């Protein structure tokens, strides 16, 4: 059975690698006062071979898209092209300093400038900031922009943000982080937001509304234009959570639906690698009315064709990042857009939606589908029936899928579906893979419930005690006394 000690347990006093030179010359106290120094530096001491083995072995117990199908709903786990890694590692991109003179980084500025343009076009928007480094930070940027807009008009009382009950957790969390109060909007029986429900919630305190379209149920909010009208009429602005852009890229544009500001998740739609949780990037696109408030600087192109920083924005909401956002991720997304081109980008949506529906009809043969109709890029199944009849829960199905070689779907989200299993196949999977996955789901539905409830059976560890982890908190290694 697999077991790898921590790197600290591998440590032996005096061991070291040969990575860096041993400095010659003077004692450090020639430069730094003795009283400013630390007495001990309790870092591990290991050899290079042990370091390599440690992380190589650990990696083998981890699952990535490179190993198999990863239908984690809402996360768009599509194939991460290896060429992106090659490009981002080129010295012209990886080994440049954010403060070097613009004349010496025209290439980098060009990539940013053109990416701003592509994203504006894709979103149907007018201007873009590349600074936010994740979707959640994009949301924060967007809500601060909305607030700044209202304030610039002397409209200080708009502190309410409408958020559908199906929204991703970052939506309410962000609204609250920027000091707004959340007005929850219920979904209707069709899993969508009703224009009537919105009408009932808007008012003079409405700063705006956050929507995800398609929403987290994988359904297109078909009253979006009407909803936007209502919100606009009430003086609010529309925020678009772009996490689900994969469903509609090249087919429909948030800007055309009435959104005033939106974020992109480059690590989803534009397939920069998720890296175990990040780094991603969450650029924000806005309609012209919001442009004066964008974080500075953006990149501009001068009449002579040179690129430079554009930072003169007195009404800016301020900075969100130490430098220019996750440039290394931006380069990857740029490469992706250039690789796909107009047909390719539309093809993403077409095939993502095709795959989701194809899997949906297969899964539907054994599991309830929360909203049984044509879905967009993902759909939500439910293990409610199974739970009732056999006690098998969504969690159990997910764990059992591991034994079949898959990553589980997102479970228990969105919150409005009991025993939710949110399945997003993405466009990069083959039909064979989808068929095999459907077969696995169907076979699990028919398996001995005890087998499923005690899964996984083939992983390096059995089911993990998460409750114990929170109770007996152990979040750092310490030498045994």
């Amino acid at each position, binding site marked *: 059975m697999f077991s790898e000690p921590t790197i600290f347990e591998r440590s032996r006093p005096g061991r070291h690698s040969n990575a860096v030179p041993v400095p010659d010359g003077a004692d450090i106290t020639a430069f730094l006062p003795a009283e400013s120094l630390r007495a001990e530096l309790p870092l591990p001491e290991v050899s290079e071979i042990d370091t390599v083995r440690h992380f190589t072995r650990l990696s083998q117990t981890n699952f990535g898209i490179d190993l198999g199908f990863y239908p984690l709903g809402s996360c768009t786990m599509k194939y991460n092209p290896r060429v992106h890694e090659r490009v981002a590692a080129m010295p012209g991109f990886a080994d440049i300093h954010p403060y070097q003179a613009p004349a010496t980084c025209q290439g980098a500025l060009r990539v940013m400038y053109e990416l701003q343009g592509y994203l504006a076009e894709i979103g149907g928007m007018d201007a873009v900031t590349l600074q936010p480094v994740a979707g959640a930070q994009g949301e924060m940027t967007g809500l601060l922009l909305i607030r700044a807009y209202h304030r610039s008009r002397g409209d200080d009382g708009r502190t309410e943000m409408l958020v559908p009950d199906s929204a991703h957790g970052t939506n309410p969390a962000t609204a609250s982080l920027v000091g707004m109060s959340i007005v929850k909007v219920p979904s209707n029986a069709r899993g969508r937001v009703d224009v009537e429900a919105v009408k009932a919630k808007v008012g003079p305190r409405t700063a705006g509304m956050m929507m995800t379209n398609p929403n987290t149920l994988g359904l297109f909010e078909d009253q979006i234009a009407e909803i936007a009208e209502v919100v606009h009429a009430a003086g609010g602005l529309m925020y678009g959570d772009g996490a689900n852009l994969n469903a509609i890229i090249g*087919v429909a544009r948030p800007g055309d639906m009435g959104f005033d500001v939106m974020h992109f998740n480059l690590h989803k739609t534009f397939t920069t690698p998720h890296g175990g949780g990040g780094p991603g990037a969450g650029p924000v696109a806005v309609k012209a009315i919001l442009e004066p408030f964008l974080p500075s600087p953006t990149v501009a192109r001068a009449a002579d064709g040179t690129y430079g920083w554009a930072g003169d924005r007195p009404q800016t909401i301020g900075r969100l990042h130490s430098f220019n956002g996750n440039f290394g991720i931006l380069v990857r997304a740029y490469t992706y857009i250039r690789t796909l*081109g107009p047909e390719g980008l539309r093809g993403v949506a077409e095939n993502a939606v095709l795959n989701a529906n194809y899997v949906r009809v297969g899964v539907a043969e054994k599991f309830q589908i929360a909203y049984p109709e044509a879905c967009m890029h993902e759909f939500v199944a439910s293990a409610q029936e199974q739970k009732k009849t056999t006690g098998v829960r969504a969690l159990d199905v997910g764990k059992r899928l591991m034994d079949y070689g898959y990553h589980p779907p997102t479970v228990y989200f969105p919150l409005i579906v009991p025993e939710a299993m949110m399945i997003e196949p993405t466009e*990069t999977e083959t039909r064979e893979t989808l068929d095999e996955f459907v077969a696995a789901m169907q076979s699990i539905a028919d398996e001995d419930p005890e087998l499923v409830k005690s899964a996984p059976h083939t992983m390096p560890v059995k089911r993990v005690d998460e409750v114990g982890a929170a109770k007996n908190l152990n979040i750092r290694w310490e030498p045994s006394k």
Partner: protein
Amino acid sequence: MAYVPHTTEDQEAMLQRIGLNSLEDLFAPIPENLRLPKLLDVPAAMSEAEVVRHLAAIGRENADAGRGACFCGAGIYRHFTPSVVPAILQRGEFLTAYTPYQPERSQGFLQTIYEFQTLTCQLLGLDAANASMYDGATALAEAAVMAASITGRRRILIPETVHPAWTEVCRTYVQGHGASVDVVPHASGRIAVETLQSRLAPDVAAVVIPQPNFFGLLEDAKALAAAAKAAGALVLAAANPMALALLAPPGEWPADIAVAEGQALGLPMSFGGPLVGMFACRREFVRQMPGRIVGATTDQDGRRAYTLTLQTREQHIRREKASSNICSNEALAALGVTVYLSLLGKTGLRNVATASVQRAHEAFDAITALPGYAPVFSGPFFHEFAVRCPAPVAEINARLAGEGIIGPYSLSTVFPDLENAALFCCTETVSRDDIRRLADLLRTFA
């Protein structure tokens, strides 16, 4: 079509299975008038071979530091990245995974995060750390928000000697909490304890103490911390983690929360990102901490296992009551730091830090010996120092760029009174030859 494996036959068979006739039918749920009647206006598709050629050409338009040397720091530091670091980061099992929500299938990444948390605690000298924040600036901002929520106070004191962009980010973040950032002016490049004391009041939630500070100088962290404590404010440390190979860790000042920008620990400069925020605090505050946390526990059979823990602080569980809105973080960058710190360890990290200090002091001596160049401040510094130059820094840098050298940061960008003042940085990647070449070029401006 790039990366889409389907053949036309695949698509047709699949459409048939779901009862549709065409790909266009898939979008029936979208009202017709919202559908884009044309293709997007982006450039035509390219094959991988073409896109590599295209990007390589663009990349060559950037003067990378490998062509010469880099004397610019100011928050991004060019240290040597050992080959083991990218070799591990590029393993598909790590690179193409997402957040380890499912512990049984993610033990490897979970353990590395547990190790990252431990390394963060070891470097910063505190008891608890999270799995990473976006960067040092947002880590500081989240620390400020956290301090406000712990203390119930609303003013954050940030000295001018903190990286100006970090201060800006803090300002952006605390807005929503009705909190405010109050900037404490520097005195000769450092924070004077008296100035700080004069700003302290019962509404001060926290005082930020940088170490080394933006000008490269060492602050009297212990005295400043004592002053803050005396006023009931929390102490937030903003440190360069490389410097902590040598300097007393924030936990000893003692700081309540400490943050650091991890880029210096084995990550490329990459035009300023991805970065990675390191975040640690005293154990008693762990439940107020933002971000993901990994804990060690056991599996059903009692074997050691790792899992995300304290998730009830987080947005996906707690929604509007979460301690932060952070979801995706900088996991892979944090893994890079973990590999770097493991490989270099105690000895290696000290060696890099020491070599950087040495080179910086050699460069300081060489430059300030030149006619027309004078130190702006005095006092001990780590690996950055400010010099008043005989010409505008932009002019000097243009000249240096011609020789493949990335020149110093121009301080007047943010401090207008520091005219012609340059902030030089040296790391161990700068050789003595590089310093000689730099001095020779600077001499031409004297």
